[in-house]
C-alpha cells in the first residue's frame, strides 16, 4: 500500500479517535467512581450538541464560544439528575453499592425521556451549523489534508483529558473523587461527603460532553437521535481503554479510530468496524480490565 495513503489514513484515524475518546471520557469517569453505567450518555451528548446549535442559530454565537455556556449547563443538568433521580436509589441500597440492573434501567429511562422531550420540542429534523472555519483545510502536500475543525476537536479532546487528569490528581476535590472511587466507606470515614462527590462526578462526566458537543457540531449534525451512534462506540472505547481510566479512554478511542480508518482502506468501511470488535473481544479475553485499567 502507498505509504502516503497509509499515513493519511492514520492521521484521519487519530483525529477521529481522539473524539471517540473524549466522548467516552464521561462514561468512564462516572463508571469508575460510581460504578454506574450511564445509559443516557448518548442523550447528554445530544443535549451538548443542541445547546451550541441553538445559540448559533438564534444569536449567531460561534459554537467554540458557546462552550462557556454549554459545559456549565451540562454540569448542572448532570448534577441535578444525579442528585434528584439517581441518588435516592443509592440511599435505598446498603453500603452505597447499587444493584447494577436497577440503576441501568433508571439511566436508560432518563435517556428515553430526554430524547423524546427533544423530539417534542425540536421535531425529528436534522440540523447543522455553518461556520467558515469548519470548511477550511490545512494542506500538507497534495494528499494530506487536515480539516481545521476536526484538528481543533482533536486538540480539545486531548486538552480535556489532560485537564481532567490534572484535576483528579492535583486538586482536593479531585483527590476526594479518587478516594471515593477507591473505597467509598473509607472515604466517608475520612469525612468526605460521598453523595456530594457523586453529584459532582456525574456533573463532570456530563460537562465533558458539553465541551465535546461544542467542538464537534461544526462538522457534525444534531437531531434528537444523534446520541445513538455514539452510545455503543463509547462503551467499546471505555472497555478497551480500561473502565475508569482517564488516559485509557483516549487510548481506546485512538485505537478504534486508527483501526477503522486503516482497515477501511483494505475492506469496505462497514466491514472495517468488525476489526474494532475483534480487538474488543481480544482485549476482553486477555486483559479483562482493559488496556489501562487497574486490577480490581
Amino acid at each position, binding site marked *: 500500500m*502507498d505509504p502516503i*495513503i497509509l499515513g*493519511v*489514513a492514520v492521521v*484521519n484515524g487519530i*483525529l*477521529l479517535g481522539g*473524539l471517540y475518546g473524549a466522548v467516552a471520557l464521561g462514561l468512564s469517569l462516572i463508571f469508575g467512581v460510581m460504578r454506574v453505567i450511564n445509559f443516557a450518555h448518548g442523550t447528554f451528548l445530544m443535549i451538548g450538541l443542541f445547546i451550541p446549535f441553538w445559540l448559533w442559530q438564534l444569536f449567531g454565537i460561534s459554537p467554540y464560544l458557546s462552550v462557556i455556556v454549554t459545559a456549565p449547563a451540562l454540569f448542572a443538568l448532570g448534577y441535578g439528575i444525579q442528585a434528584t433521580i439517581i441518588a435516592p436509589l443509592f440511599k435505598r441500597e446498603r453500603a452505597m453499592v447499587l444493584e447494577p440492573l436497577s440503576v441501568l434501567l433508571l439511566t436508560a429511562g432518563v435517556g428515553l425521556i430526554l430524547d423524546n422531550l427533544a423530539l417534542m420540542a425540536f*421535531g*425529528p*429534523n*436534522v*440540523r*447543522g*451549523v*455553518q461556520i*467558515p472555519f*469548519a*470548511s*477550511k*483545510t490545512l494542506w500538507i502536500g497534495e*494528499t494530506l*489534508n487536515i*480539516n481545521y475543525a476536526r484538528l481543533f476537536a482533536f486538540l480539545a479532546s486531548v486538552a480535556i483529558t489532560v485537564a481532567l487528569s490534572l484535576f483528579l490528581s492535583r486538586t482536593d476535590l479531585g483527590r476526594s473523587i479518587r478516594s471515593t472511587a477507591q473505597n467509598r466507606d473509607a472515604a466517608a470515614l475520612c469525612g468526605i461527603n460521598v453523595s456530594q462527590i457523586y453529584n459532582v462526578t456525574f456533573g463532570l462526566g456530563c460537562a465533558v460532553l458539553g465541551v465535546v458537543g461544542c467542538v464537534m457540531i461544526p*462538522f*457534525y*449534525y444534531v*437531531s434528537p437521535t*444523534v446520541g*445513538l*451512534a*455514539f452510545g455503543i462506540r463509547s462503551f467499546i472505547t471505555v472497555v478497551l481503554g480500561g473502565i475508569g481510566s482517564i488516559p485509557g479512554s483516549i487510548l481506546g478511542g485512538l485505537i478504534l479510530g486508527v483501526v*477503522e*480508518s486503516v482497515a*477501511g*482502506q483494505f475492506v*469496505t*468501511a*462497514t466491514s*472495517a*468496524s468488525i476489526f474494532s470488535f475483534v480487538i474488543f473481544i481480544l482485549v476482553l479475553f486477555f486483559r479483562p480490565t482493559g488496556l489501562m485499567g487497574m486490577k480490581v
Partner: protein
Amino acid sequence: MKRIPFILGLCVIVLELSGSPVLAGEKVAEVNIGVVLSLSGVAADQGLQTKTGATIAAEEINAKGGIPVLGGAKLRLLFSDSQSKPDVGASETERLIQRENVAIMMGAYQSATTTVTTEVAERYKTPWLVTGSVANIITERGFKYTFRPNNKATYDAREQFDAIKGLTQEFGKGPKTLGILVEGSDWGKSHAGIVRILAKQMGYEVVFDEAYSPGTADFSAQILKMRTRKPEALITAMYTPDHIVFNKQYQETKLELPYGLHSVGGGSEVPEFYKAVPPESVRFMFVQEDFQIDITKVAAWTQPVEQKFREMLGYDLSAYGAQGYSAVWTIYDVLQRAGSLDKEKIREAFATTNITSGPALIMGWQVIHFDKDGQNVDAHGCISQNLNGKRTTLFPLANRPKGVLPVWPIPAWKDR
C-alpha cells in the same frame, strides 16, 4: 372462557352501530377518502407535507363545488396516523374501510407501510392510490385495487443514468468510471444493486463501491479511497444526517468528481439539508428529485398552491406535498368518470385513467395512466443540478426550463 360470549356480544353491538355502506347511485353529500400517512415517528415530516398538499387540493375542489357528477358532493379527507409503523397503518386501513365508509384510500409514503396497507385494501376491494412509496413490489403482486402514479425504485436509478448519458451527448464528454456510496440499509443497498446492473449494461466501470453504516461521523476513509481510485462521477443514496457530514467533508477535502456528485434524493431533497450545509458543498450537485422542484417557474398556475403550502408549513412546496396535492386531484378525475361511489366502478375508472393536463400533473409528469398492475409506467422524477444556489431541473428535457445551461464537467475546486 366465560368472557368469550361477552366479547362476541360486544362485537355484534359494534358491528350494528357501525352502519351500512353507502350504496351506488345514492345521493351523497360527502365522499369519504381515507388517508393513511406517517404523521408521527421517523417519517412524520414527510407525512405532514403530504397531508398539507392533500388538504390544499381538497379545499380547492370543495370551494369549486365538490364533485359535479355526484351532485356536488364534497370531498372529506379522513387522515389517519400510521405512526410510521406498518402494523399500525394496516389496522388503521382496516378501521377506515370498515367503520368510516371510505370510497377510496390513499397514502402511505413509507414503502413498508404501503406494502401491507394495500394488502388490506385489496382484501376489502377498496381502491388504493399510492403516494410516494417506491418499493418495486407494491405494483408487482398482480393487485387489482392498487394504483401508483409515481416512480418505482428502479426508475430512480435509471433516471440518474439517463441524465449522465444525456449530458454526455449534450457536451460530447462524460465519465467512464463511476463510484457508488450508499447507506447500508434496505434502500441504499437495493439502489446500489440496480446501479451496478445499469452501469454494467451501459459500459461504465465501477471503481469504487461501498456501503457505510448510517449515523457515521466520518467519511474520510471512503474519501481517501476515492482519491486513489478516482471515480469520475459518484452516485450516492444517503439519508439527511449522513448527507450533511458527507457534503461537508466533500468540500473540506476538495475531492474531485469531474462529472459530479449524483444523489438519488432522500437526504438531499429536504429543505433542512440545505440549511445545514455550506452552499459551496452542494454547488453543481445533481439530485434525482421526486418531482419537478422548479415547477412554479414553468407552470404559473402552481404558484398559488406553493403560496398556500408555504403559509401552512413555512417552506416551499416539496415533492411530498405535491404528491398529496396530485393524488387528491387524481381522485377528483376518477370520481368524475366513475359517477358513483360503487367501489367496482371506481376501480374501473382508476384503471382507465388518462390524465394529460390539469392540477394532478403538479409533479411534473406528462401523463397519469396505469398499466394492468396499477403502475404508471410513464411516471418520472426529475434530475436537478444545483446552479446559482438553486436546484434547477435538467431532465427529462421536456421539463427543463428555457435558457438553463447545465455545468458539465464541473470545474475543479481550485477553479471555482
